[in-house]
């Protein structure tokens, strides 16, 4: 059986830097990183260490100032190619929910499926099934402002999973939640990973409990990777 680390990288960053304000602010410096299928990675570090920037670069929402980001064989994909990847292969869970206020929880999940195969009924069915998985099917008709923080997070995760992505990027999924809800979200993410049969997860977190359970932990400091450890073998397909 081939170790996960030796498999072709799903995402690869080669000497990637991201600066702002004409180079005066350095968010990420010279980062080289490979992410493989099935890994469950925690990205942690102090505030301002570059965690969110890393997630944005991995999803193509941001473009590096220098260096190369590759998705499988796509080297430095164009903005349109990144958009297509986010539509089909990369799921995103935002730190501050980012649900559309005029749509219900179910509609917020459905909206990410526009442009994918299947009509309205298929989208509706999948959205409700995902919300059922998240335990909030009974809240599917409510708008974000009518949901609790935990419910919004679950709706956001359901939206991230809507197109059956190969990689889910979650930016601080337990922030702004009470400890019990945060723990429930962590359990949910690990459960999804177990059931996801190879879905890669990259979670930005400050939560020690969550970081400790991840198979790989990447610590950032001042925009650079200072620690990258694997303690548990990543999931890999059966030989």
């Amino acid at each position: 059986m081939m170790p996960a680390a030796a498999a072709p990288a799903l995402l690869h960053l080669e000497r990637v830097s991201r600066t702002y304000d004409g180079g005066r602010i350095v968010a990420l410096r010279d980062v080289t990183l490979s992410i493989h299928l099935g890994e469950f990675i925690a990205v942690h570090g102090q505030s301002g260490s570059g965690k969110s920037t890393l997630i944005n670069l991995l999803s193509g929402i941001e473009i590096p100032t220098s260096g190369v980001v590759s998705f499988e064989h796509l080297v430095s994909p164009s903005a349109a190619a990144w958009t297509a990847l986010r539509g089909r292969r990369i799921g995103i869970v935002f730190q501050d929910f980012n649900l559309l206020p005029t749509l219900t929880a179910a509609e917020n999940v459905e909206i990410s499926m526009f442009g994918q195969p299947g009509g309205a009924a298929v989208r509706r069915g999948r959205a409700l099934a995902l919300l059922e998985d998240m335990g909030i099917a009974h809240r599917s008709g409510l708008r974000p402002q009518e949901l609790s923080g935990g419910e919004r997070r679950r709706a956001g995760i359901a939206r991230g999973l809507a197109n059956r992505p190969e990689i889910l990027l979650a930016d601080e999924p337990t922030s702004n939640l009470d400890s019990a809800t945060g723990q429930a979200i962590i359990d949910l993410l690990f459960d999804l990973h177990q059931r996801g049969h190879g879905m890669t997860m990259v979670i930005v977190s400050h939560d020690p409990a969550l970081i400790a359970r991840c198979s790989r932990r990447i610590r950032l400091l001042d925009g650079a990777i200072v620690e990258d450890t694997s303690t548990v073998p990543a999931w890999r397909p059966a030989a």
Partner: protein
Amino acid sequence: MTWPGLLLRNLVRRPGRSSFTLLGVALAIAGFLTLTGVSKGLRDASQASLRERGIDLVVMQRGMVEFFSSNLPEILADDIRRIPGVASVSGELGALLPFGEDNHALVGGWQLDNRPFEAIPLIRGRLPVAGEHGVILGQVLAEALHADIGTTVLLQFSPFKVVGIGGFTSPANSGMAVLRLAELQALLGRPGRVTLFQMQLTRPDNIAAREAVRAAVSALRPDLVVSVPDEVLKTNRSVAMLAASSAAISVAALVMAGLLILNTLVMAVEERTHEIGILAAIGWSRWRIVGLILGEGVILAAAGGLTGAIAGHLGGLALYRFVLLDSGIAITVQLAPAITAVVCAVGLGGLGAIYPAWKASRLSPTAALRQR
């Protein structure tokens, strides 16, 4: 959730902004339709009036800015009558005169002994006889004046006795009063003068014969214009100016509708920058975002256009009922301008949405997500 369903939800769940824009578009379209309805109604009323009288050709003074300024000698009828192909000629003096203190109506001085007017469709009463100061009122005018046979009405502040009620079918004729020509000439101090001549031809369906008569009449005097009924108002400058003003105001109204949609959608894009960033971040392509904004613009415009078409129709009816009833002008309900207006509204909605849609599609997801 379907794509149209998503567009509708976005509009319906922002009821204030959507409804005010819809109302603005509707008002512009209603104004457009009412103005074109009045303009068309004026032309139609004139044509229907002449057709109802069985007129084949109308002779007027050329180049008059205002319809009633045409001033021709009554004796010219004798010269016209001698032209081969002319079956009958009748002079008419026309004026817009005060009825009582508050009303105005079109008044025709007709040669009641001549052929075109032998068969005035009287529903009550009779034709006036010479010297009696009698008047025939069109049915609509009689209703507006609450007058009937035997009633005395003040026409140009002189008393006239209603002797007949005409059951005309055309709005212009229904809203007018008919006197004997000599009595109107005396009332206006224009003895021996007429506004126009109405002609019947021996072979009205023969175009060559009709054109020959037109040429012969035109040759009588250099200041004559000879028209078939459908052309009468086209050659009139005041009507042309009214039509041009209506067209200009109508186009301005439509452009305002487009700008309103543009403004609304630009504001919507500004207001929804964060949302658009979310859509881009979850994989919506630029074209899908453009489609969202364009779709919302087109739906707003179409809804406004349809509402405006209905409001324009109802407004036209109200204008006719409360303002134009005794003027002889009907608001012509036209399907083609209504369809044109709605199509224009949709087109302008689309045009108005292009800039905000383009603006939305250019937003960087990270920059958009940072905005609240």
